[in-house]
């Protein structure tokens, strides 16, 4: 019986190998070792712990001279370290990176992972550093998507999402629910409180009622710090996997963040977290999820938040009539304004994109007067 199970396990391992789920190829991650409040030895210590536990992980150090067992690029300058890091990622010399104090472009934010104290569960915090959008609700909706991407990158097929009860939570819930109905793959979590719902209270944070906790970045950053250092009094982060990878629509590489207070255990966690994401091809997952979200109506939903545009003086349309005469030659950028000019003069007109470019359509009897008016207003 025992042999049979062993055979089955070996066969399954072989199958995983063929499917690319596991591989004998090592994953190389870069780790910058400058800028920590705890000194660079603390970060190197984290790297040692990580490779010891994971034989398929290799770490390349960027920073001051470190132990010989690591391949390394030496520098004492933080800026230079980041330049080396970017070069290594670009040339594919490393598959991903863990660093600190790194600036992501607008639109990319990090998704961290913590251990919740009540049940020791892993929970993603979306997001923890970076700026997803200047609009709070838009940012949180996008953070939700980034959270889904990170969770899928961590091997959770259909993550459960909770929305932290901060300002804008209800609006975010509405939009995410609509995206979910239209094809974005996730489930809404339920609060442990008696009245339920997917808007998460403080109790849910401690309990870990969801796989992904969606919040704004500042709150997320705060939570990361609390969850990872509440056992030490604050200046040394001992728990969890760090602030996580920078995720966004146009992300090209996997770069994960730790803080200046992250201790060796968190550095180890961050390397392991990044290792999983590389293996599961996070960049590809991000691309797919954004396409799915787009199909589910993401842009339209986000437009709707922002469409509290100023209403300009509105010209009333004259009564509609059949328009079969074309006026061509009007600049595309001025087309709508030109129609407004005609409407003001009680000429019914529509815009159109004909086979020969943009046109204004009017009734044949109005064409002459329309052209004159447009000439008068310098549209023609």
């Amino acid at each position: 019986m025992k042999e049979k199970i062993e055979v089955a396990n070996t066969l399954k391992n072989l199958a995983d190998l063929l499917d690319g789920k596991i591989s004998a190829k090592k994953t190389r991650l870069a780790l910058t070792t400058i800028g920590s409040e705890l000194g660079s030895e603390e970060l190197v210590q984290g790297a040692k712990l990580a490779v010891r536990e994971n034989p398929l992980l290799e770490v390349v150090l960027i920073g001051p001279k470190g132990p010989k067992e690591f391949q390394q690029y030496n520098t004492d300058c933080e800026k230079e370290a980041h330049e080396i890091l970017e070069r290594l990622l670009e040339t594919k010399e490393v598959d991903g990176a863990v660093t600190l104090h790194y600036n992501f472009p607008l639109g990319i934010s990090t998704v961290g992972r913590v251990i919740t104290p009540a049940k020791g569960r892993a929970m993603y915090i979306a997001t923890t550093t970076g700026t997803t959008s200047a609009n709070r609700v838009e940012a949180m909706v996008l953070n939700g998507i980034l959270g889904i991407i990170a969770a899928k990158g961590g091997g959770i097929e259909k993550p459960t999402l909770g929305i932290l009860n901060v300002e804008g939570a209800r609006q975010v819930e509405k939009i995410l629910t609509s995206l979910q109905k239209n094809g974005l793959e996730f489930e809404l979590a339920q609060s442990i409180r008696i009245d339920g719902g997917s808007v998460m209270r403080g109790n849910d944070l401690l309990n870990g009622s969801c796989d992904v906790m969606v919040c704004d970045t500042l709150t997320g950053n705060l939570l990361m710090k609390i969850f990872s250092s509440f056992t030490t009094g604050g200046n040394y982060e001992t728990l969890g996997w760090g602030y996580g990878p920078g995720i966004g629509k146009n992300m090209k590489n996997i770069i994960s963040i730790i803080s200046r207070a992250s201790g060796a255990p968190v550095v180890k966690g961050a390397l392991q977290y990044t290792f999983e994401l590389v293996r599961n091809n996070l960049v590809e997952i991000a691309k797919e999820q954004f396409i799915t979200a787009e199909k589910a109506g993401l842009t339209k939903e986000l437009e709707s938040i922002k469409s509290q545009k100023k209403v300009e003086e509105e010209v009333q349309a004259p009564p509609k009539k059949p328009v079969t005469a074309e006026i061509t030659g009007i600049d595309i950028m001025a087309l709508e304004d030109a129609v407004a000019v005609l409407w003001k003069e009680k000429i019914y007109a529509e815009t159109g994109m004909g086979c020969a470019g943009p046109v204004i359509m009017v009734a044949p009897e109005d064409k002459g007067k329309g052209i004159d008016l447009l000439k008068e207003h310098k549209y023609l």
Partner: protein
Amino acid sequence: MAFPVIKSSAYALIHTPNLLISQGTTQSSERDKDPNSEYLQKLPKHLRNFEEAVAYPPNQAYIGGISPEDLKDIPRPWYGNLLTEKGRFGPFGEIMPEDEFYGLLKISDTFDLVLLTEEFSKEVKEKLENHPLLKNINLSKLDKYATEEEINKAVNGGGELLTLEGKVVGCVKKAHDTDKNLTAHIILENLVAKASGVLALLHLKNNAGISLEEIDYIIETSEEACGDMNQRGGGNFAKAIGEIAGCVNATGSDTRAFCAAPAHGILNAAALVKAGIYKNVVVVAGGATAKLGMNGKDHVKKGMPVLEDVLGAFAILIGEDDEINPVIRTDIVGKHNIGAGSSPQAVMQGIVTDPLDKWNLKITSIDKYSVEMQNPEITEPAGAGDVPKANYKMIAALGVKRGDIQRSEIDSFTEKHGIPGFAPTQGHIPSGVPYIGHCHREILADKIQRAMIIGKGSLFLARMTNQFDGLSFVIEKNIGQGKEKGSGNLNKLLAQALREVAEKFETE
């Protein structure tokens, strides 16, 4: 599954100043109003001769003699800067003179409706016997002449004259006594579409280096309608063209969508090939006499030659993946939906940005956009502006809105991703398709990777709907896209088999 490819293409123009006067709607409407009008009096002095039409830079760009990009270096007006060293034959096809085309009309006529004089028939037969492509088809219809009396009788009975330099060389008879759909005018219009389509198809055979017997299906996409009073527009131009050219193993049908028809046709052809229904499908269209001299009044008024003196025709061969020719990405397709509304933004969004969004492509990911490639020298004097430029501006504006480019980059985008207009204003002829030949050449030469072909139409013209229409597809360098990677698939199967075996061990 692999994508269908653009195997080859052909482009032909026919210089027809006499048909311009007799058949162009601008001229015929004017004649109905006042046969002695100032415009009609002045018109003949503004018509170009064949040599001028051949040396006209946009015409050379159409038949591949030069690249459309070359037009940027030729000062305007182009009609004042002729390319005298270029001949009537180009890499994609030819510019045919009117006399030879009358001969081709006769060859394309299966109902003895085209009558030609003996003198002209002999003359033109000799010319066609020396034509590199037409010499291979059956020219025996030209051995049958009509007498002056027969021609007069036909013309008096409602026939349309065929003239050359003021001299009558023949006529087209009406095909029915009372049927308004078979008048000589309509028969001539349709025979022109048919004969010019035949010319393009023969050039396609030549360019593609295949036998026409290998063609399985023909889709004709012109703007004419053939049929009688009980089924106006019943068709079938496709089969009529294929018959004359010699596509003995093909059948076909007509696709109509105004100017957008070629884009619809190509997409249909690509679908037929991809589905495995046919291996080789031709999309073909001939020219439209009605549009000859359409903006003639403005051209005459501005003292320029009447530039709309050519009929356009093209043929494109779509076939199965050959790992060489550029592919049609049947998965990157844009369309204007009925419910989208007709505003320019809605139309362009449906056609251009929606398909890009689906693949997370930027507006700048497309190297070249082929829109309505109308020659601006024809449209500008008439006040319609530079049509391709207006389209590029709209695409650029959408790009700004999406954040793909900056507002200040609109002009440079237009310059880089646009193409100067070079096609005659023959409705469906300039609509996206004229660039396919050049695009094919540039992709094979690695000058570009990806182009979007856009066809648009103004459907309100038929008074059936106020809708506009548009369709787009992407042509891309063939890098084996869409094909299942062999080993990956094998590994998956093997992994599945191993898991099944593992399960057996576990359950035993």
